[in-house]
């Protein structure tokens, strides 16, 4: 594996992809919305809870109460209950952003016929695939981390208590943002690579690959319905599952991303 070639591919992808306004829009606008939205909701719910003189824990699923630390007030427990829903928004970022980049960086090469000259260089298929995957995943991972950092930094400004902040900066969220996010980005990019071998244009690849967010919505609705409560154990199980999914997706991506298939079957 030649790191210089991988760096060159990443450099090329970024130079090209970041000149695409739509990609930039997705990379800036969506994380901004996903960061501001929970802050706004937290701010107003904090105000309303104050006005109502607090909300009882009786309004929350019984399974959730174990998530609230013993030193939390009922209002703080309610805020944690609410904020846990937004965790899934942060988890969606590394899934949606790389799909847009991968759709342009991989399928786009098909439509512009630029993949063949690239494949004619001494670079190996594995180097090309790693370069392209990293070029698509890294910005999404960093954007996710930066958004989370901004979210954390803004929490005290809207009156969120230290107890709630320390919960958000605790193991469940950190596992979700630092470990689960990148794992989901890898799966999402490899799904885009897989889809790109079957479709003809970047938009179709993007749309099909974006279906990857469906399981996250499933998680969101399950949480809303009180079927599951996101805690460290759930997150660890999710990460374990994602590792298996990633291994499967990488294997699938590499087995499909063969020079001959790309040149002769990618029409």
């Amino acid at each position, binding site marked *: 594996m*030649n790191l*210089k*070639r991988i760096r*060159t*591919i990443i*450099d*090329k992808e970024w*130079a*090209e992809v970041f*000149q*695409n306004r739509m990609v930039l829009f997705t990379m800036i606008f969506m994380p901004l919305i996903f960061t501001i939205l929970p802050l706004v909701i937290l701010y107003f719910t904090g105000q309303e809870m104050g006005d109502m003189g607090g909300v009882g824990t009786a309004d929350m699923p019984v399974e959730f109460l174990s998530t609230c630390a013993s030193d939390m007030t009922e209002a703080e427990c309610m805020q944690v209950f609410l904020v846990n829903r937004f965790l899934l928004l942060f988890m969606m970022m590394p899934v949606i952003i790389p799909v847009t980049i991968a759709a342009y960086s991989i399928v786009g090469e098909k439509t*512009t*016929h*630029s*993949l*063949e*000259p*690239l*494949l*004619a*260089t*001494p*670079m*190996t298929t594995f180097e090309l695939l790693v370069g392209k995957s990293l070029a698509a995943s890294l910005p999404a991972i960093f954007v996710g981390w930066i958004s989370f950092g901004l979210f954390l930094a803004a929490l005290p400004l809207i009156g969120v208590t230290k107890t709630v902040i320390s919960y958000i900066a605790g193991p469940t969220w950190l596992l979700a943002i630092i470990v689960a996010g990148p794992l989901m980005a890898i799966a999402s990019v490899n799904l885009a690579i897989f889809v790109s071998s079957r479709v003809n244009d970047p938009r179709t690849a993007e749309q099909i690959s974006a279906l990857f967010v469906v399981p996250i919505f499933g998680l969101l609705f399950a949480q809303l319905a009180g079927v599951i409560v996101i805690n460290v154990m759930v997150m660890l199980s999710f990460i374990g599952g994602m590792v298996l999914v990633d291994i499967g997706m990488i294997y699938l991506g590499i087995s499909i991303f063969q*020079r*001959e298939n790309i*040149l*002769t079957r990618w029409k």
Partner: protein
Amino acid sequence: MIETKALTKMFEVKKADDIPAVVDLDLSIAQGEVFGFLGPNGAGKTTTVRLLTSLIGPTSGHAWVNGFEVGKEDQKIRSSVGVLTEHPGLYERLSGIKNLSIFANLYELEKPEKQVEKYLKMLGLWSRRNDPAGRFSRGMRQKLAIARALLHEPHVLFLDEPTSGLDPEAARLVRSFIEELGDQGRTIFMCTHNLHEADRLCDRIGIFNSRLFAIDTPENLRQEIYGRKVVFHLRFVDPTWINLIKDIEGVLDVQRVDQKLVLAMDDPERLNPQIIRTLVESGADIQFVGELRHSLEDIYLQTIEENEGESQ
């Protein structure tokens, strides 16, 4: 430099017979040779280039490029050959200089900036180096793609339709550059539909439609198919002269076309003086003598037509 033995490529088709793209190709191309690979659309020319540049693998047979075997030393082959693909395939949002820098780094050149500058200047693109390739004219794009293929100074160069879609001026520029490359001693394997171009640039030509039907120098192909013919333009033709000339040993055929005699013969250099003497002694006024040259197009069409059944 390039050698193939029974090189074959079949494409699998679900629920149908495999499609033969290249069948039993035997080639031997020497160092410094400019080789023209001619054939109709869908003949398998691009597939052959892809096989020889290790982009795809053969179904059977063997091929060696620069001494490296296809399928076994693919990375070495790709390091040592340059390819101008059918479509320039440039990164249109990136500048000309960036397009080349990417490839200079992929080939791990020691001084990538110098090589990029050298070829941008050589192909007259230096002043537009910072413009996005998408703003280049078609000719400029093709030149940029040629520069990309040459960055790592390959000994063997594959050019797939190098002047396709170019205006006459751009095509002439590209052709003269290919001539220069040939003069530098590089081996050039060129697929083209432009028969005039092939006739002018190529040392040898292969006529191909899944199978190789003919391979030789353009001149030898002419002789092989049509033999050598000389046209004698006369003030008038006396029919008795035809038999006189037919009696000369070595003259294969004589035909009268208006006030011209068209003679088929093996060795015009030896026979022409004798024929001229015979005609003059018989009272003929010779206005003009010239060799009848069939165009490469005639040769190509004749070869493809003759072998039409075989390529199916």
